[in-house]
């Protein structure tokens, strides 16, 4: 296997999609179509955010409460997945130790693009109650993964978490999703 000569690069599917989008963007009226398609795609993505069930500490209990009957995150299309390969949202619920940080990073890397991160609670946001005099807690999860929405609270109420997810949905809905693939190819 290793003796085979390197293959010439095959144009990836992403590149061909990007080229098609680029052409469509140039056509008269294509811009409008593109925006509409983008809107539809974004609506679909925002309405079915699948988070990774990934609890670190106390905030995870409130996250569980948000998935349970009273607050019922399934209502807004947030259905927990057990594996990062199927998830597109990571809710970092709780304090992250330095020992745990590489694992969080690897889980994030295993998630397919586009992916989002919600930092839930004071600890995930900046270390919170464990900021000072502490040698083991990471001072904010944004040191290892990029965070989209910060939810303050210790722990945040389940409603606060839902509000954070709604906020993330707003962000997703206005994302230039298709045009970004063009930009990624350029």
């Amino acid at each position, binding site marked *: 296997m290793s003796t085979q000569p390197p293959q010439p690069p095959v144009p990836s599917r992403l590149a061909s999609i990007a080229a098609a989008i680029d052409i469509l963007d140039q056509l008269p009226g294509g811009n409008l179509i593109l925006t509409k398609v983008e809107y539809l795609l974004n609506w679909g993505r925002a309405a079915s955010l699948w988070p990774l069930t990934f609890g*670190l500490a106390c905030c995870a209990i409130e996250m569980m*409460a948000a998935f*349970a*009957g009273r607050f019922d995150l399934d209502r807004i299309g947030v259905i927990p997945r057990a594996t990062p390969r199927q998830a597109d949202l990571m809710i970092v619920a709780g304090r992250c130790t330095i020992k*745990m940080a590489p694992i969080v990073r690897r889980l994030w890397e295993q998630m397919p693009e586009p992916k989002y991160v919600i930092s839930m609670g004071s600890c995930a946001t900046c270390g919170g109650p464990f900021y000072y005099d502490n040698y083991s807690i990471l001072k904010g999860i944004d040191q290892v993964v990029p965070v989209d929405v910060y939810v303050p609270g210790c*722990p945040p109420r389940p409603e606060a978490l839902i509000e954070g997810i709604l906020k993330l949905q707003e962000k997703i809905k206005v994302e230039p999703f298709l045009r970004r693939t063009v930009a990624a190819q350029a």
Partner: protein
Amino acid sequence: MPLRTEQLMLNMGPQHPSTHGVLRLVVTLDGENIVEVQPDIGYLHSSVEKMMEYRTYLMNVALVDRGMDYIAALANEEGYLLAVERLGGIDVPARARWLRTIMLEFQRLSSHLVWLGTWGIDLGATTVFLYCFREREVILDLFEQVTGGRLHHVYFRPGGVYEDLPPGWTDRALAFCDEFPGHLQEYHDLLTGNPIFLARTQGVGVLPKDAAITMGACGPVARASGINFDVRKAFPYEAYGEVEFDIPTFEQGDCFARYLVRMEEMRQSLRIIRQAIEKLPPGEIRSKVQVTVKLPKGEVYARTESPRGDLGVYLVSSGDDMPYRVKIRAPSFSNLYALTEMMRGWKVADVIAILGSVDIVLSDVDR
């Protein structure tokens, strides 16, 4: 010629939906049988013992809530404050003692409900989770009306409690006590009679009595193995000496017995709450203690019965307004040790059932 098999090392966690937090289990398998289990802990080590040395006694109340067993925050406050009060000779007014008892028992209920719900998910009974959290929300609402927090309360203070009950709270609490046995029966209907549940739990993960003593198991795990020991009865603290309750004990030592112990404990908690609300004396809720209280030089060990077992706090004071050293003897930690004994020889599919039945909280293990 005998078939030669190789032992397989399986790595479970730290991110695993069923390991109840961030526990890593290194399981050595022979075929499907477990040869050995080694828990790898420390993924949630929050160095709370060290942090407590830099905070005053009052501030630490906020810290022990979070740094220790977070599902039962009030039980941590109780363990810590018992040590502070014993060392400082601070006396707690009678009403505060009874209020603490009520709150601690509600905390036990909510903690056991979290355990039952998550264990149900582990065993494939997702419905139980929804029912358990439905009842837990009622308890959390009751908590919120008194303490202002859902999970972390910071309600107990050195020498009493922060605030008195709001008007009408006892009626709501009693109404909950009246309807909760019906819900308990629902859980029994859902699980106890279910043949799948029985097949997965009955006779699985047996911890014999002598092994339980050797491994230092405590709390419901020990009681399921036939050790009739409860700190609330053996060394009564707060108002536990003045209420009547039984300690459920089972001899089998399997997952099912541990389940039954906790189910029965919930019933006993209701009994304690009812008696405590009835006997709740009027009067002060807090004795005068300075914000920066200084404890005399010395050391003390206080043990309490948290929902997970025997919680001990060893406190050394150097006469300052901060502790010199705090050592927490966490119940989950010793139960996790007993887990290695329980799992040996079982099938790999039983790992989750056994792990869930022990009810460990990783924050309590690692601190």
